[in-house]
């Protein structure tokens, strides 16, 4: 028997799509000065949102996933962004940046800030290349139109959006005709499937979570990546030990503590996410991990304290509310979300993340 000429990697079973600014990176470009400062930052000066790199590493640990990053950052920052990702130990499969110089030279001024005409075709084209059975989890933030675009993308490939509705959305979002054509072309080549399981929206601007209720329970607003890890544990995409590792990373690198983490857990329960079942496996993972050689986990506080804090938060709620039912998203009612959002100071600018 002869060996094959090459061994292809197994097809991806999971695709994780991430935005960069304010989702993976703590970025402030709400003013011109901040924009210039961000543009001139070296890779070592850029800071990731606590837990983001750890979560990405854990999601990729099984080796059956793809990491696709799509960012509104200009292509000129590719080198520094790639360097930053490498510094954080993040391995990616796609990194798409926005060619704003080209937009400027061609007089496409609306495209400079527009998100729908930029992200939607990239997402659909990437999906067209992906295995049809690959499931997706998307990560964005509340600073731009991520919840709208990701939901629209998910419903487009699932066949839940009619073409006239899409046309109206693209018109309202002031998408250039050539971008609209790209979107339609890519959409028609994507096999119909319903692969998007979750859309996480990092609340960089601390938008009230109820704001995203209009997108249904698939969209989960999060205050930190420990919350995302908990939901993904509930979804079976992470193991309890992996969640503990994400938490430990946040404790060590960003000053998170027992109170902030247990509060984050309770917040999800209050919003109706069915996470009561993850508590017991988490406790087991903690107990097991602390006896192992993992130094990161050994840095955690005594297990009984952790268990007590989490148990109290659950008990304090009494009855937890049910998850809101899934509803069909009415994109025509949500057109305002497709436009760049008004100015609200980010968490980093308010110093909210800097000290726990």
């Amino acid at each position, binding site marked *: 028997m002869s060996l094959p000429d090459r061994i292809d990697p197994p097809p991806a079973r999971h695709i994780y799509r991430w935005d960069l600014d304010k989702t993976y990176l703590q970025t402030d470009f709400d003013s011109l000065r901040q924009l210039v400062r961000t543009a001139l930052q070296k890779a070592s000066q850029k800071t990731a949102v606590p837990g983001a790199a750890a979560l990405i590493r854990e999601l990729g640990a099984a080796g059956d996933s793809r990491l696709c990053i799509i960012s509104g950052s200009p292509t000129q920052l590719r080198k520094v962004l790639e360097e930053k990702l490498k510094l954080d130990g993040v391995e990616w499969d796609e990194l798409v940046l926005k060619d704003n110089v080209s937009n400027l030279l061609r007089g496409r001024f609306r495209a400079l800030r527009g998100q729908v005409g930029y992200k939607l075709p990239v997402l659909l084209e990437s999906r067209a290349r992906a295995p049809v059975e690959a499931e997706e989890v998307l990560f964005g933030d509340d600073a731009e139109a991520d919840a709208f675009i990701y939901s629209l993308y998910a419903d487009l490939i699932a066949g839940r959006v009619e073409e006239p509705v899409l046309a109206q959305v693209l018109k309202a979002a002031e998408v250039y005709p050539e971008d609209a054509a790209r979107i339609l072309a890519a959409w028609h080549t994507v096999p119909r499937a319903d692969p998007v399981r979750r859309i996480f929206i990092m609340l960089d601007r*601390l938008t009230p979570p109820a704001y995203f209720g209009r997108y249904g329970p698939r969209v989960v607003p999060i205050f930190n990546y420990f919350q995302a890890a908990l939901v993904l544990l509930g979804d079976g995409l992470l193991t309890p030990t992996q969640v503990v590792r994400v938490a430990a990373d946040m404790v060590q690198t960003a000053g998170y503590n027992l*109170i*902030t983490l247990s509060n984050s857990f309770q*917040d999800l329960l*209050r*919003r109706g996410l069915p996470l009561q079942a993850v508590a017991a496996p988490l406790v087991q993972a903690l107990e097991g991990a602390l006896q192992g050689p993992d130094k990161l986990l050994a840095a955690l506080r005594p297990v009984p304290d952790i268990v007590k804090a989490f148990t109290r938060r659950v008990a*304090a709620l*009494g009855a937890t509310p049910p998850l809101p039912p899934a509803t069909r998203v009415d994109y025509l009612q949500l057109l305002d979300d497709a436009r760049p959002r008004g100015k609200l100071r980010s968490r980093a600018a*308010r110093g909210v993340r800097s000290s*726990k």
Partner: protein
Amino acid sequence: MALRATTIAFDVMGGDHGPAEVVRGAALLSLEAPHIHALLVGDGQVIEEALATTRHNAERISVHHAPTFVAMHEKPASALADKPEASVLVAARLVADGEADALVSCGNTGAGVLASARTFRLLAGVRRAALASVYPTRTGHGENQDPFSLILDVGANVDAIADDLVTFAVMGSAYARIISKNPNPTVALLSNGTEATKGPPRVVEANQKLANHPGVRFVGNVEGVDIPKGTADVVVTDGFVGNVCLKMLEGVSETVVELARYAYASRLRWRMGLWMLANGLSQLKDLTDWQQYGGAPVLGFDKLFIKAHGRSRARAIANAGKVAAKAVSSDLAQAIQAGLG
């Protein structure tokens, strides 16, 4: 200096503006004070509905469900007896159990004081706790020259003996030192004359004791007229007189506003005069706005209870939380205990 992480339990129910206003105050606190965690006690569903539509940082907020609450019109003792799971009592128990460091409530004052009395311990040497309140004065006090003085007791007890008044003086002095950043606050007894022999026997006796007290900068007796003047940083009296004084000060303040409204509506010349003074009046209002100062502390227990005004809006609630956190991180109870010897 890094601020100590503190957890403040908020009795969410019972305020004049409803639970949502208290939730908004705690939400504001979660955005402004990274070292303070808010533990919201009340109807879990109501709290979550308010939180979900309010900008907040969930990392600094947790909720403890309490199924009932004491309304403003209810009699404290019987209400607490009938409702052992009332939010203010549950919140006080959580503080006593160490789940939180202090309690803030804008609900029924009597219920709050009684819940504190039932769950917290009196400091050694304290026979009765006192409710203290800040009030606007003509002169500034402390490091920040705040135009406020402290008066206690304003209603936790109706009666007080001389030793209670001495204890109140020590407690008020410690509070002014820590919260108003006034390193050596002046303390006076409220009486019907400045002479040491004036007043009822308990006041005369307290005067003698305070005159020789090493931990209190006692400046003698003051009269009612000295209260708004701000002659002393801390004014000590019993709960009956203190409550009457406080209500009278509030009444005068409201009457002045009413008179200004009347003047504004009556004559064009008066209206123009008020219009010209508007900026100054607005600054004066901001300076003397009680909402800036959060609430009235109940002093004398091992744990702190801040009684926020029933009409408190979110800003006042947030400030009450900040005052509570400041008192906790500055070890107010320990300072009082040290003053009592």
